[in-house]
């Protein structure tokens, strides 16, 4: 072969590892080599990389194509390589491997792409490569854009293939002038802890964050803002850390604390508050799109979805380090001696939708869930839009379609299942009741046990036959489908568990699996033999069993994932079609990121494929440059309204660049240095002078930096949907401080849930549950709680990395007229009258202080007093309205006066400032 190679245009290298080529990583091995140009093509060669095929010496491959062959043998280096370079390598080269195909080296060209080989040696007519470049079908012809190959060029490639596709040993075609994103894009480079910069105004320094920010401001000729006043600060940091406004007592205490470190003490108190977890759970729930229902048409309820939310709040409150936080949520079930809590953490992966519509294809929606998990993980940890590579290789970032399915493969064998996860106090009565329960169960089942088992085996055989031979018997097709569709419906159980148990050998099933399948069989299995079912009275037995179950104590269940009972092989799905299978893939991580295999001890033995647990550990390995950057950026976004990278869900080449790249990296390094402590990072950020700046906007600054990219001030941020609700309830005194537990349904018009198809009504909760924090509001995917939607709550079916903040008339109508908010106004009025004695001005000051954390200015006070009198006069003329407004009469307060206080309270609750954190 070497005779084909001109020594003058290539170099050999001693370090080339062939196996790496199979993983599209070959280029890295040879980069150290000097190269030289040959007609625009740079060639590098390694000795171990063989040719595709030695041309048969005896010429047996010299077949029918001989007639069209050019007279002289084709010369790879001068004829084929330039052609591939010019037309193919931009998409099938080192930077990108569209359809998994790479044509710059022999191994890649021989292996072919996701749909199989593209070159059939010595048979150009059978080679898909020729079909693509020489075809006329507009949809498939290659290249899809740009100059097509000429007839002569196609003939040349034909001849080359027919001659045995000679590829000189080890030659790698390098595309001139093409640096890959992996090499150049900032976010893909390792995190190196930057030096803290020097700057002039040292007096503004509280910690290193400020050094980076002020350094940048000075370069722009700007100065930071002074610190916000204390009243603003306590309101800001309280809202930011626990999501609630401070109480008047808390404000008073802080304003009067003259000792040094008052602010730091305040921060520490807030970080220790149990409400901290409630506030920080919400953005994380936006990412995994938590909801209390299945989604899609039937949108059945998931009554135990909240178990994951409870875990999350608790994990945040105990400051579970972010690396462990990651591992438990993605693979808690795989940890050695995993605790129930660690398993519940995987509920993170259970927030995907379930389609229980009749006729839905079980595999199609299982694939959709797995894709969702893959995309979610890509977004939440890596800040990559990996979903773009589902149907084709990523257009902008170095993630090939095959790599997408390698990531997907980590989740392909994660099956949905619910487990018994006893709440405090549940275990003992459950255990105590077991002997009786088991005796009663035996009594019910024993008389028919043998015959029922025989029937069940027949039933299962028929189901399995239908699953393997769809279309043969539509009735059994349907029974198989229904087993998957309805299994555990309305209980929020994993859909496919029933099917998976049936697939499992009878003697490999656990007792629990047997029991659960038996319950299903007795209820739905009669078609196997109606007569026998009747003879054995299995329906009655089924009812008895269901009754026994419902009367026996049972631990509350929790949704988790666990390794599939019946492992699946993962394929590339061509064009994202779940039925269109390409090559098989093993779990793996994108090549441009640090290798999975090089990551130390954490990994399983090398002879097995990496697991979900390995993947989780890889995400938080110190070498992973994306996870810490993406994570600290989201923290920053929550505390400043905008990330240092504004596109917090996209750190790829299409995302925004960091406004303060060094600060971002310093924070990323700090996160790891502080053992991934989220609270430590929150403390670090909120105690910086940057965070503590005033938020006032001067026109000059607004003109130069409207989005506050440079951080010459804090930003004024409208509350999130939950905060709007929580704050109104808090200042009115209605808020229930109860932590955790199942979701609740605060009142809302019934018409909201009537918009969806599902039969989920909305029966409002009673008592204190009407006044719980927004975090606990029941989320129906097809008809989410109206107030949440109105205030930019995210879609509960899709990952959301940053919420929008809009001003709409519907928000105004909600705050003005929604009965929930009106009730808070009435309660606020009563609170003002009850808690503050004095004249109108005093009481106005008190109410204003409750809502904004500061006293009104005198023009503000004057305006409120004027309003109060105006409203009171209207109500004096309209006693009925006064009665209606005041709702409850208060001793010693005339209805018109009470009504005017309600009116005044609605004014306070509608102030822009009330729903804004300055």
């Amino acid at each position, binding site marked *: 072969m070497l005779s084909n190679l001109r020594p003058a245009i290539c170099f050999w290298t001693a370090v080339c590892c062939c196996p790496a080529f199979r993983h599209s990583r070959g280029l890295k091995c040879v980069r150290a080599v000097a190269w030289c140009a040959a007609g625009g093509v740079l060639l590098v060669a390694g000795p171990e990389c063989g040719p595709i095929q030695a041309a048969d010496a005896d010429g047996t491959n010299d077949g029918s194509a001989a007639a069209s062959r050019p007279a002289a043998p084709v010369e790879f280096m001068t004829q084929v390589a330039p052609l591939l370079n010019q037309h193919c390598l931009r998409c099938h080269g080192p930077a990108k491997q569209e359809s998994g195909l790479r044509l710059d080296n022999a191994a890649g060209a021989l292996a072919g792409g996701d749909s199989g080989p593209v070159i059939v040696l010595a048979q150009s007519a059978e080679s898909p490569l020729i079909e693509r470049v020489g075809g006329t079908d507009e949809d498939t012809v290659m290249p899809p854009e740009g100059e097509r190959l000429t007839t002569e060029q196609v003939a040349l490639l034909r001849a080359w293939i027919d001659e045995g596709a000679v590829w000189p040993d080890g030659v790698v075609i390098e595309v001139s002038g093409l640096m890959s994103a992996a090499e150049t894009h900032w976010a893909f480079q390792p995190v190196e802890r930057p030096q803290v910069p020097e700057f002039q105004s040292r007096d503004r320094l509280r910690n290193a964050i400020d050094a980076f920010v002020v350094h940048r401001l000075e370069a722009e000729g700007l100065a930071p803002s002074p610190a916000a006043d204390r009243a603003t600060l306590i309101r800001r940091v309280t809202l930011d850390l626990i999501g609630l406004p401070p109480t008047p007592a808390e404000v008073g205490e802080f304003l009067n604390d003259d000792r040094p470190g008052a602010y730091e003490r305040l921060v520490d108190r807030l970080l220790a508050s149990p409400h901290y977890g409630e506030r920080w759970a919400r953005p994380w729930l936006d990412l995994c799109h938590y909801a209390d229902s299945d989604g899609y048409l039937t949108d059945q309820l998931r009554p135990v979805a909240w178990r994951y939310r409870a875990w999350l709040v608790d994990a945040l409150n105990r400051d579970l380090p972010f690396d462990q936080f990651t591992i438990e949520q993605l693979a808690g079930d795989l940890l050695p001696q995993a605790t129930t809590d660690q398993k519940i953490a995987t509920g993170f992966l259970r927030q995907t939708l379930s389609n229980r519509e009749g006729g839905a294809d079980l595999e199609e929606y299982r694939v959709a869930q797995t894709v969702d998990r893959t995309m979610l993980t890509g977004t939440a940890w890596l800040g990559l839009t990996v979903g773009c590579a589902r149907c084709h290789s990523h257009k902008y970032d170095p993630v090939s379609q095959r790599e997408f399915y390698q990531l997907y493969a980590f989740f392909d064998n994660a099956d949905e299942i619910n487990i018994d996860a006893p709440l405090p106090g549940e275990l003992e009565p459950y255990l105590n009741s077991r002997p009786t329960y088991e005796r009663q169960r035996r009594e019910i089942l024993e008389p028919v046990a043998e015959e029922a088992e025989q029937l069940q085996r027949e039933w299962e055989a028929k189901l399995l036959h239908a699953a393997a031979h769809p279309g043969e018997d539509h009735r059994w097709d349907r029974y198989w489908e229904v087993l998957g569709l309805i299994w555990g419906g309305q209980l929020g159980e994993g859909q496919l568990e029933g099917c998976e148990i049936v697939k499992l050998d009878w003697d490999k099933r656990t007792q629990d699996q047997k029991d659960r399948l038996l319950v299903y069989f007795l209820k739905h299995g009669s078609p196997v033999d109606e007569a026998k079912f009747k003879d054995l009275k299995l329906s009655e037995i089924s009812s008895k069993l269901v009754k026994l179950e419902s009367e026996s104590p049972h631990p509350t269940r929790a949704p988790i994932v666990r390794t599939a009972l019946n492992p699946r092989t993962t394929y590339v799905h061509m064009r994202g079609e779940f039925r269109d299978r390409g090559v098989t893939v093993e779990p793996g991580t994108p090549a441009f990121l640090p290798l999975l295999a090089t990551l130390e001890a954490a990994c399983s033995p090398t002879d097995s494929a990496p697991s979900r647990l390995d993947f989780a550990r890889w995400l938080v390995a110190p070498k992973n440059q994306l996870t810490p950057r993406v994570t600290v950026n989201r923290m920053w976004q929550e505390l400043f309204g905008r990330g240092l990278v504004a596109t917090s869900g996209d750190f790829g080449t299409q995302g925004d660049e960091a406004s303060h790249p060094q600060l971002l990296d310093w924070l990323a390094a700090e996160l790891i240095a502080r053992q991934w402590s989220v609270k430590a990072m929150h403390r670090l950020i909120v105690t910086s002078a940057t965070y503590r700046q005033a938020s006032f906007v*001067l026109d000059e600054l607004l003109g130069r930096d409207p*989005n506050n990219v440079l951080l010459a001030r804090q930003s004024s941020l409208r509350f999130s949907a939950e905060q709007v609700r929580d704050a109104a309830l808090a200042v009115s005194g209605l808020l229930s401080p109860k932590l955790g537990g199942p979701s609740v349904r605060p009142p809302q018009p019934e018409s909201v849930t009537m918009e*969806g198809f599902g039969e989920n009504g909305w029966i409002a909760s009673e008592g204190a549950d009407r006044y719980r924090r927004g975090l606990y509001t029941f989320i129906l995917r097809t008809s989410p709680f109206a107030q949440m939607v109105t205030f930019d709550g995210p879609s509960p079916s899709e990952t959301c990395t940053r919420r929008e*903040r809009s001003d709409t008339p519907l928000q105004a109508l909600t705050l003005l007229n929604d009965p929930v908010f009106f009730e808070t106004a009435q309660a606020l009025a009563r609170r003002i009258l009850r808690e503050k004695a004095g004249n109108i001005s005093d009481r106005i000051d008190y109410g204003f202080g409750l809502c904004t954390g500061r006293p009104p200015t005198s023009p*503000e006070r004057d305006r409120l007093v004027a309003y109060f009198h105006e409203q009171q006069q*209207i109500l004096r003329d309209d006693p009925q309205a006064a009665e209606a407004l005041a709702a409850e009469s208060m001793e010693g307060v005339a209805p018109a006066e009470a009504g005017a206080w309600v009116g005044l309270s609605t004014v306070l609750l509608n102030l822009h400032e009330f729903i804004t954190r300055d």
Partner: protein
Amino acid sequence: MTAQQLLAAERRRLFLKQTAYGLGTIALADLLARDTPAAATSSHPAAAANPFQPQAPHFAPKARNVIFLFMAGGPSQLDLFDPKPEMRKLHQQPVPESFLKGLQDSVIKGSAQVFASPRKFTKHGQCGMEFSDYVPHLGTCADDLCMLRAVHTDVANHHPGQLAMNCGAPRFGLPSMGSWVTYGLGSESDNMPGYVVMLSNSGKGVDGGSSLWTNGFLPSSYRGVTFRSKGDAILHLANPSGISGQSQRVRLDAVRDLNRLRHQETGDPEIPSRIAAYELAFRMQSEAPELLEFRQESETTLEGYGIGQEKTNWFGTNCLLARRMVERGVRFVQLYHSTWDDHSNLNEHLKTNCDMTDQPAAFLLKDLKQRGLLDETLVIWAGEFGRTPMNEVRRGNTPGQEGRDHHPFAFTVLMAGGGIKGGQIYGKTDELGYHPVDGKMHVNDLQATILHCLGFDHTQLTYFHSGRNYRLTDVAGDVKHELLA
């Protein structure tokens, strides 16, 4: 001076101390410019202005407004619009193998039997367009209607299908058509939202719920606002008991004045847009009762829409409201009627839905035409897919109670007005109505054509999100110029 005023003064002093903007300015301008397309949050001054500011599309439009009658659930095209006399011969026979070649769809099982439509079809209008006896009123509009008989979609489940028809792909999180249109065109209405959704049903709500009128990743101002003909037209439109119109004005004035005082203090650019939103809310409160008040409408009009008649009242009221909204400058009105999902008892259920909608939908076209509004209003009648030529057997096979399953491969859509050539049938299906044989049109083609009527190149109406430019037609869609007047 308060502490805050002191701070503000301090800020001014600091600014004055600073000299010219210095070397960083160019880099800064670049950085800030980068921020604009992706970060269309309301904190940006451009977004603080009216998001519904009317805007010109790419080229001169034929249509200014859209009324989309979404027939959710999948109406049976074979019993309404696409007569197949040949089917009689195959009635109750298995579907010939040739139709099923290459099909993998889960819903349509090979074992089903052909179910010839029992409906009677008649030719209507000068064009001779055929309609079944269930939709006689639509038949009277034949010469204004363009009937697309070979529309197809990618999915056969309701919710994904509705997303595909309305948001361009069977996925969550994409903006709906009405959001795209109001994002592109703004709205002419000062007192009403630009994109309004109204619902009616014959028993069940629309499958996709509010995900069908979501703004997706567009700013939430472009989300469809549900308007109800019963109860509060818009959620929380009515004042609480005890707040009279006068009290409402008084408290709104106080809120406005206090917000202005705060703005003077802090300069927060959000405050003016908050004030504007409150004013629009008040105008909606004042305008809505007038909109809902039909006293000005003639008897003929009310009768035409079937208002006051039990069967037609609900959908008829929504149709009349749609016309009144379009008159008032609302850009995109979408009516959802559900559900046409007739897996069994098709004859009876289909009739129920036709009785509720046929007359009002037809009268809407006539009413718009008579008022000279049809030329500039594009009206679309469509479901998310059609129904199979076969009786659905998986739920039994009782004569007289036949039903049809979901059919994504070919179904019928109606269009009228707004630049569409009436009196034509576009597209043809095979003798079973199973597959298109001519004039095949994907839902993305339909969307591209709708946008074209509104003056948009569908490939250019885009929004940068999550690393790329998105558009209504996803990555496909061809304008069908044959449909245009």
